[in-house]
């Protein structure tokens, strides 16, 4: 067996944590992801299958629902499924089993880097980062936007608590953008 060392998206053995003022940016590697796109004419069946999987109503436009497996809306009849990696390493397989031939499922774990932003001034940071109207985002809101020219998903977990998903291959650039915005805004 090869003796491989697991590293995070930023290349460390431990997730990177940055604090500026009241805001904390935490690299969060422990998530499994899979995307679901309903096949034509089977949108309702896909919606039901996703609903059963996450134990909640399938999220409407700009929302996320469920727990501990959650789904967030990524486009018309498309969702991303997110779950803790420890318990759901084979998430894509699980989603495919649930949706069957009603939807196309793609493994997305490790395609994305996740940064969790928490703290009082988090809205000021997000306002610098994207054109998203983040002050109108309540808990349960999810939206795709451009941050630092990267297509990212922004999820509002609770008031003052956001998750940002960006492309893992650009994790360093996204991290730089977030920390620079934190230093500027706070």
């Amino acid at each position, binding site marked *: 067996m090869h003796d491989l060392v697991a590293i995070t998206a930023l290349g460390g053995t431990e997730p990177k944590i940055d604090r500026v003022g009241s805001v904390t940016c935490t690299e969060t590697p422990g998530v499994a992801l899979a995307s679901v796109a309903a096949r034509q004419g089977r949108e309702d069946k896909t919606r039901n299958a996703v609903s059963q999987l996450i134990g909640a109503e399938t999220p409407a436009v700009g929302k996320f629902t469920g727990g501990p497996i959650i789904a967030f809306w990524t*486009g018309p009849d498309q969702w991303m499924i997110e779950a803790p990696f420890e318990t759901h390493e084979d998430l894509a397989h699980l989603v495919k089993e649930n949706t069957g031939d009603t939807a196309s499922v793609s493994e997305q774990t490790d395609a994305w880097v996740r940064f969790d932003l928490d703290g009082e001034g988090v809205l000021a940071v997000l306002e610098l980062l994207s054109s998203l109207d983040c002050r109108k985002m309540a808990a349960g809101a999810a939206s795709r936007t451009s941050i630092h020219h990267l297509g990212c998903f922004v999820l509002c977990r609770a008031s003052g608590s956001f998750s940002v998903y960006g492309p893992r291959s650009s994790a360093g650039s996204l991290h730089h953008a977030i920390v620079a915005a934190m230093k500027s805004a706070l």
Partner: protein
Amino acid sequence: MIIHHPLLGPRDSSEFVYLGDASLINRPDWQAEDATEAFYDYAYLRDNPAGEHRELWFHEGGDRSWLVVTRNTATHEISKVELARDVARAQGRSK
């Protein structure tokens, strides 16, 4: 300029990229007798109206949906925004 996305509401136009005339969604049948002429028309011939114009926009910095935006080229006023797939399906297209 603000584009009122039919699903996501008002979004800044910087999130979108422009493709061209909305007639581009009506790709001609390549097996038709007059395919050569039809593709010449499809690829090269455009109206250039000073006024209402239907055009394709892509929400690249958002949910990546294709939109048909009706825009006045003289005033930039946007009077209608539809999902391109709804427009195509309303015309009896399957995809």
